[in-house]
């Protein structure tokens, strides 16, 4: 009996020592927590995102305004639940001052919801691009320096109709919120410019066998708009090509990305010339972009041939954070008041142009219409064909009018 008591006392003592929060709110250290999908099918995307965070921190030499920066990382599995858990751990256990992340749309909404409850922490979006993260019920301490899925496609619809002459199109996209958003962004411009959607295929996420979809695509169309990510995109493209499909393609943001372009296997010559829209492009001809790519390659020889949109997004967010910290001289007092005010007004120079924030702390930034091109060594990349300057979340529409379009969904916009 005494033994049992002894064991329990030891356990209790151990538990107490464990439970004490890490109380080193010591001066001279700023704690940043970063979260991304480091496990499961999306691990490769999350890893590249983390590279973006680390690259920015390296550029600042892990010091800002004389204070050391300590980085805490947490993994999610792309589900909102895991994002909430990761954010809680970073905020409540590691006691970070700043959170950077997450990666995917539904995660972003979950972290924004959580941000409402933690006014003493400032949140920077990673690369998640759901509209409602900032459009509806935004959190005062949640900042997004990257576009959302609609912004990414700004101008692509008009470009496709006017320049490429694609008047009839079908869409093939994954059946979830980010793809809805991406498709909406494309169709808003496309339909306004007079394009017609013949059919929309919503494919379950993770579907690999597209042969039946390929067979269902009608013959009398001009192009296919494909908003699939990762290996789903690779599968669709190769199956479409193998089955003898010859209609040109228009790509969604994550479809024309290094995570797809650099996949191993038969080169998809078919993809060359595919237009798409994104907040960045592989061949931007600006010094700051070239510097970013060079430093990315130097720091991560095992990374992609060129930083993916995930590395870029996390990088931009981290740079925004560090730049503002510099400006306020590391002052995070009074619930980050000065820091946040600076962030709201900042004109951030990023590798892809100037970014400002709107009243919901959502980025107003340059967007790029790109086409896929091939480097002499056979590596595919996205080439800028047009810059759409300073796109805001409502694509220039009146906020009320834009909100009246309603939340994203399978049939929004109707495009009749």
């Amino acid at each position, binding site marked *: 009996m005494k033994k*049992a008591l002894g064991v329990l006392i030891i356990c*209790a003592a151990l538990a107490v020592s464990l439970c004490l929060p890490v109380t080193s709110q010591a001066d001279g250290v700023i704690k940043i927590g970063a979260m991304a999908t480091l496990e499961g099918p999306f691990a490769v995307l999350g890893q590249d995102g983390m590279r973006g965070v680390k690259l920015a921190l390296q550029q600042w030499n892990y010091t800002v305004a004389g204070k050391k920066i300590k980085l805490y990382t947490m993994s999610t599995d792309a589900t909102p*639940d895991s994002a*909430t858990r990761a954010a809680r751990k970073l905020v409540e*256990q590691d006691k970070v001052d700043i959170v950077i992340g997450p990666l995917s749309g539904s995660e972003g909404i979950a972290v924004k919801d959580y941000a409402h409850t933690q006014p003493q922490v400032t949140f920077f979006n990673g690369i998640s691009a759901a509209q409602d993260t900032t459009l509806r019920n935004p959190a005062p301490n949640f900042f997004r320096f990257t576009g959302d899925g609609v912004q990414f496609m700004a101008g692509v619809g008009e470009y496709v109709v006017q320049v490429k002459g694609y008047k009839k199109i079908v869409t093939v996209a994954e059946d979830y919120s980010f793809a809805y958003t991406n498709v909406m962004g494309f169709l808003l411009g496309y339909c306004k410019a007079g394009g017609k959607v013949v059919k929309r295929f919503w494919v379950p996420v993770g579907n690999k066998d597209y042969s039946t979809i390929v067979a269902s695509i009608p013959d009398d169309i001009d192009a296919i708009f494909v908003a699939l990510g990762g290996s789903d995109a690779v599968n669709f493209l190769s199956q479409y090509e193998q089955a003898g499909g010859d209609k040109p393609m228009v790509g969604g943001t994550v479809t024309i990305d290094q995570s797809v372009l650099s996949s191993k296997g038969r080169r998809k010559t078919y993809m060359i010339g595919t237009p798409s829209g994104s907040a960045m492009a592989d061949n931007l001809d600006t010094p700051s972009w070239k510097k970013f790519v060079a430093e990315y390659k130097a720091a991560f020889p095992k990374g992609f041939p060129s930083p993916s949109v995930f590395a870029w997004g996390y990088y931009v967010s981290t740079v925004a954070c560090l730049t503002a910290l510099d400006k306020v001289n590391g002052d995070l007092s009074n619930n980050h008041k000065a820091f946040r005010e600076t962030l709201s007004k900042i004109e951030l120079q990023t590798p892809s142009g100037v970014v400002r924030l709107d009243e919901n702390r959502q980025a107003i930034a340059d967007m790029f219409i790109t086409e896929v091109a091939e480097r002499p060594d056979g590596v595919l990349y996205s080439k800028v064909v047009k810059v759409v300057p300073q796109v805001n979340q409502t694509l220039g529409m009146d906020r009320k009018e834009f909100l009246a379009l309603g939340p994203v969904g399978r049939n929004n916009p109707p495009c009749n």
Partner: protein
Amino acid sequence: MRGSNAQVIRGTSQADVLWHVLVFVFLLVYPWIASPFWTVQIGAQSLILGMIALSLTFLAGYGGMVSLAQVSVAGCAGYTVAVLGVNSFNMGLGWPWLAAVILAIVIATLFGTLIGAISVQTTGIYTIMITLAIAVGFYYFARQNYNILNGWNGFAGLKPPVIGGVNWRDPVPFYYLSLAVVAVAYFVVVYLRRSTFGLSLQGIRDNDRRMQALGFNVRAHRILAYTVAALIASFGGVLMIWLNGRISPGSIGIGPTIDILVIAVIGGLGHPVGAFIGAVLFTLLENFAIDLIASERFNLLIGAVFLAIVLFSPDGLLGLWQKLRQWTAPATH
């Protein structure tokens, strides 16, 4: 997976009672010595995961039926609360919380019973496969259904009510709420072990054909066991969504499904307390494995711990503990 070397079945001993009292006192004091993170994120989370795992321990340990659909049952309860009550997507029916919770538990329990009715057609290893397939089917359904379940996004903004001026989502009240529910479930399961129903379940586990030859309707008993387990899991499910503040298909996917199995097995199916031991270890690993080995390979650690336990101690940590005690205890006879 069960049984000890003890030849004589003994009743509840004084030592057992003392242990229970000590642990319970510790659990009561815990939030006063722990930070809010440890209270909720580790404490309440372990309790709730343990509760869902407890429903599996009850099914598997007493009844010999390993169901992987317990997370689906919990998710069914969670989803029902989200749909009937208030959520931040404005898709809720806005029912009062009590009505929503009661109906959620009723629906989830019926759902669990239905799963039972389907899967008791088969036994042993077949049950694992069938319940796994049901769980995945439910996951896909939730993911694809936007009209009621809001598809991929699920629901957010789910909160326990404010009653008597206490916000039950504050760390300490929520911890005590979870503890109270879990304690009731735990003692009910412990009590059931020696009840007529519990005994008959153990009889079915050991030898279903013989139970039939004694006049028991084995099928009905098995289905009822699923009902009881579903009741436990659905309470766990309601607490779970209050903890996370949200539910989505990811909450009921294959990952969480396997997690619950891992928790129950790591702890040990031999006694209801195993579910909670497993849950504490799992929660700690989930939160701190990434700190322990700084690399990105923390899933390897979780897998290795799990594999080591099933390879070397089939009865889980509980079995390890018993072995250790037999080892260190002086030979008495």
